[in-house]
């Protein structure tokens, strides 16, 4: 096991990593910008090194500085957390080349999954379902009809050279192809000087469902169920839950097995998440995140597994400590991302925290680097706390979440706690009946 790990991140996730290390008897090195000298994880770490000025490019993204910090502290492993350098294959490469252990997947897997096109081809080849489409250009309405019949309506005709939402046409019935295909080709020619178009299945109100996996590099891969992260605003997840209200056990097992089979073939190492859109009982691959995710605690809550601990163990060369048969899903968990932002306008609200009081009691977990009097720097993202609530059933979980949100005090700055309180009172949300556009539609109705 590692003697000392450098935590190449900040905020709540740096604290999360510190806690896991501390609980494993591993000494921690916090790196930080000048803006984060007072941060909780810096105060708690065994050692701390200031590596640069506030801009992330000069500190948390500054590879030479991070390696220098590892060098002067004699760290053995480097944990990148999420964001920043966590999915930077070059960083993983340099870390390993300098003789440190990168606590994450192999450089090669990061690289492959980091390229959208290559990722899609790779996972498709491994047997993971992707959004169906024509393999190339389509010119003939009859060919289009045949393809669309296979993938199911509605179907999107997309300009091969298009982008930014232009050069697209939605087709809901076969008889629309006759005119739609030609129209799209004409528009495309006019707009992009290229009349090539192709087909892709169109998802109207999909959910965002992601499968958590972990592998130890021997080909042994285990899935830890899914998370439903459909509540998003501008592609940012706001609230996540596990299990998804939309899946039953059979579906869960099937998609889990598909993902496990695929990633076993490439001997995937460390934590990873395969993200899908889900509609009408079908999964469609979006991307794979080759790192620990913000919302990992909901999976920890329902499985009882400490994901970060397991990730560190594997990086240190240990085999997975459990098999698929050992995984039991228990109860329901929801995570609310507490952001320093106005709950209506979403304007970020950095500044000095007045009173800070986290909710407690049974089934409530708070991951936060905040404390009374802490000054939230304006340079980084607005996530300041994660409230994770676990209950026996989804309803128990919602009741407990409501209770916990009501106890949460963060003064001095604006936080989005009222948004979460409102959200969980919505009938659609209570019914589990929502999709990736639901939150933005809800917010529009609020105005």
């Amino acid at each position, binding site marked *: 096991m590692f003697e000392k790990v450098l935590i190449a991140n900040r905020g709540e996730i740096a604290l999360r990593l510190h806690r896991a290390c501390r609980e494993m008897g591993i000494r921690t090195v916090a790196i930080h910008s000048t803006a984060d000298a007072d941060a909780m994880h810096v105060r708690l770490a065994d*050692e701390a*090194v200031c*590596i640069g000025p506030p801009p992330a490019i000069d500190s948390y993204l500054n590879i*030479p500085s991070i390696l220098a910090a590892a060098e002067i502290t004699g760290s053995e492993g480097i944990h990148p957390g999420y964001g920043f350098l966590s999915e930077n294959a070059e960083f993983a490469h340099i870390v390993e080349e300098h003789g440190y252990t990168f606590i994450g997947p192999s450089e090669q897997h990061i690289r492959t999954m980091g390229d959208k096109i290559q990722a899609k081809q790779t996972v498709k080849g491994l047997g993971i379902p992707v959004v169906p489409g024509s393999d190339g250009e389509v010119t003939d309405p009859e060919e289009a009809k045949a393809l669309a019949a296979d993938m199911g309506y509605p179907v999107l005709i997309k300009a091969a050279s298009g982008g930014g939402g232009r050069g697209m046409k939605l087709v809901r019935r076969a008889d629309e192809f006759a005119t739609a295909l030609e129209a799209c080709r004409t528009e495309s020619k006019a707009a992009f000087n290229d009349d090539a178009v192709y087909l892709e299945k169109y998802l109207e109100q999909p959910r965002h469902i992601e499968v958590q996996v972990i592998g130890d590099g021997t080909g042994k891969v285990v899935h830890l169920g899914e998370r439903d992260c459909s509540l998003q605003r501008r592609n940012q997840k706001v609230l996540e839950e596990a299990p998804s209200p939309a899946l039953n056990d059979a579906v869960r097992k099937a998609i889990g097995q598909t993902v496990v089979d695929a990633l076993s073939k490439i001997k995937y190492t460390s934590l990873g998440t395969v993200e899908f859109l889900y509609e009408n009982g079908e999964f469609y691959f979006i991307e794979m995140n080759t790192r620990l995710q913000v919302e990992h605690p909901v999976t920890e809550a329902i499985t009882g597994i400490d994901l970060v601990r397991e990730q560190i163990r594997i990086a240190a060369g240990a085999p997975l400590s459990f098999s698929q048969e050992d995984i039991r899903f228990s109860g329901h968990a929801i995570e609310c991302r507490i952001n320093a932002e106005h709950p209506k306008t979403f304007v970020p609200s950095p500044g000095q925290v007045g009173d800070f009081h986290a909710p407690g009691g049974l089934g409530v977990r708070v991951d936060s680097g905040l404390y009374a*009097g802490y000054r939230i720097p304006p340079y980084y993202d607005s996530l300041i706390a994660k409230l994770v609530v676990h209950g026996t059933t989804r309803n128990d979980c919602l009741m407990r979440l409501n209770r916990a949100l009501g106890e949460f005090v963060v003064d001095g700055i604006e936080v989005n706690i009222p948004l979460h309180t409102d959200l969980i009172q919505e009938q659609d949300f209570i019914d589990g009946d929502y999709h990736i556009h639901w939150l933005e539609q809800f917010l529009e109705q609020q105005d």
Partner: protein
Amino acid sequence: MAKTKVDKDLIRELAALMEETGLSEIEIERDDDRMRLVRATAPIAPVIAVPTAAPTAAGAVAAPAPAGDGSGDLSAHPGAVPSPLVGTAYHSASPDAAPFVKVGDQISAGQTLLVIEAMKTFNEIPAPKSGVVTQILFDNATPVEYGDILMIVE
């Protein structure tokens, strides 16, 4: 009130006494003289609530060595040369070479003052301005953090 008559040393002594004893007010009256000193009801905890139970090993590792304790105070010094990066600082280009500069040296802007090694690369740190090196605040071959004050050039 005649200027010469105020006993400033007495005020200093009394203030120290108040500090020592935790008193918040002293009033002394003698003949026609009267003096009253008040110290803010002091140990009012600052609003900034630091997690004091937190282990404070933080920052221990890369503190600049010899005059390190003073570096905090020197950071506002007009002649301070802060470290532009994290790494291991050296006085000279190689173990056998003479140091780039010594205390008392007259230097010109741009002249190399030291090197900092990070990722097997030696980065020359130039003088930000001309002047005389009055303090060297790090030991040879010791780690420095970003922002540590390395030298004073006046």
